[in-house]
């Protein structure tokens, strides 16, 4: 019996979620006394994973799996899970992981719990807490199946170091015939994505127009943050859809979320309220967002934000 995690990579390196999943998997494997296994695709340097408690890493390298393809990855994961009698498979909540998990669940006849927060309350049967109603609530789910899959919410489990002797095993990819082909992947280079960001800086209609977005971008680059926006801002074409956060956009679960000129409508809050610390800058002291914030500044964004950027630069310089 074993526990299996799917580690994701970006530009040939492990993503932070790989270390989160390893830390999480280790915490489950230890009391059960079972092996923690990981699968990775097309990565050269596997050593960073050694620090997080993985016992065995299955490394698949194949140029035709260069681009993530959910069904091919799922087929490889399924085979490994079966060969190694994995009772629990753990994935992140990235776009790719959420794409892959339901396919893997069907091929393993496994139960799948997405949006899991925190460690399971029990393993047999599996009892987990999951967010639902777009983070407005949680539920306690019970999964009583031979194999179960956990989709761990982003940024919901802290990374903890736990160096282990990690066995690395090469495995040949299984490739199935398919008409499905990834033609092109376009990524904004050098930008942090909302899903992976520790800090997100978000702008609303209060910024008046796209020409003022340099304020958001400057603040974000000072903090190494991703940029986001409210729904009307993307609907009006001020910013791309990919930045729309909230109930009908992307969820945000960052450590720090800074909202500037965003009123804090219920649909906006629903998507961002699993962020740990929320800062609100708004010129209306009655803006509903202040009720959901940890820190608030009542003021004009066009004065407060440049000041904040200036002070942050000085702070970083002195660090």
């Amino acid at each position: 019996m074993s526990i299996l995690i799917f580690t994701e990579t970006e530009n040939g390196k492990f993503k932070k979620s790989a270390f989160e999943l390893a830390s999480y998997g280790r915490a489950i494997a230890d009391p059960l006394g079972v092996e923690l296994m990981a699968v990775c695709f097309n990565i050269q340097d596997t050593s960073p994973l050694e620090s997080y408690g993985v016992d065995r890493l299955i490394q698949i390298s194949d140029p035709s799996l260069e681009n993530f393809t959910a069904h091919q990855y799922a087929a490889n994961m399924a085979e490994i899970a079966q060969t190694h009698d994995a009772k629990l498979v753990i994935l992140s909540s990235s776009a790719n992981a959420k794409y892959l998990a339901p396919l893997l669940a069907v091929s393993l006849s496994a139960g799948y719990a997405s949006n899991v927060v925190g460690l399971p309350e029990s393993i047999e049967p599996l009892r987990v807490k999951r967010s639902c109603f777009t983070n407005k609530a949680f539920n306690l789910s019970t999964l009583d199946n031979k194999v179960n899959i956990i989709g761990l919410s982003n940024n919901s489990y802290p990374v903890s170091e736990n160096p282990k002797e990690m066995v690395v095993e090469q495995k040949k990819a299984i490739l199935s015939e398919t008409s499905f082909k990834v033609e092109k992947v376009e990524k904004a280079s050098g930008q942090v994505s909302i899903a992976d960001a520790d800090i997100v800086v978000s702008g609303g209609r209060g910024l008046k127009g796209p020409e003022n977005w340099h304020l958001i971008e400057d603040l974000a680059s000072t903090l190494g943050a991703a940029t986001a926006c409210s729904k009307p801002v993307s609907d009006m074409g001020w910013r791309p859809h990919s930045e729309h956060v909230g109930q009908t956009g992307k969820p945000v679960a960052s450590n720090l979320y800074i909202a500037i000129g965003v009123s804090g409508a219920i649909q906006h809050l629903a998507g961002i309220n699993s962020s740990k610390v929320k800062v609100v800058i708004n010129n209306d002291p009655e803006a509903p967002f202040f009720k959901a914030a940890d820190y608030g500044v009542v003021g004009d964004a066009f004065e407060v934000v440049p000041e904040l950027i200036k002070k942050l630069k000085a702070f970083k310089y002195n660090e």
Partner: protein
Amino acid sequence: MKILVCVSHVPDTTSKINFVDDDTAFDKNGVQFIINPNDEFGLTRAIWFQQKQGAEVTVITVGDPSCEPTLRKCLAIGADRAFRIDLSPTDGFQVAQQLSAHCKDENYDLIIAGRESIDYNGAMVPGMLSALLGYSFLTNCMALEIEGRSVKASREIDGGIESVSCDLPLVVGAQKGLVEEKDLIIPNMRGIMQARQKSLTVVPAVDSSIQSSISKFEKPAPKGAVKMVDANQIDQLIDLLHNEAKVI
């Protein structure tokens, strides 16, 4: 081209989320239900295929009779016919099994579902359905063009966009971008009248299994009060974020 759009009947986005029966059930009292927003983007795209490429559009939901107004609304928006599979589902896998049983008899070319629902946010049904049927699958779909049997589509990925090609049959997980908010079709009087004449068939559920069940709901712990910082003392904000919250 035969298209199936799977719709979910969900609480309106402004709903107060509360629970009853010792926190074991969602409190529907006073809650308005709507078409799940991701499904509505998908439905609109399907109607365009109907208008421009002569596709036939069927809508389906797995749910109890209270879901029927949502199906009627889909018919008023322009779907040709509707099915309701008569079951209050327990989990996403159960929904996928019910849909797959219906699809096996119908041989749809294209199945569109929302990438996730806004109530349970499971993001399970479209992928599981594709796997049960052996169809190709693309989720977070931002663009979809079909000529004959060949599909060109794109998917939103973390930090970018990916273009793909494949052949029908295909299951798609829809989201905003597939059509824009302004493209959503508001039913007019004529559509509403016509919808009354269109067929809405109730079909009994098939045997299916359950993989997960919910025993309890809870709400997030109440938040502490907000700390206000004077706009003229931004240093204090940086100090709080660094020393107290420890996030910068």
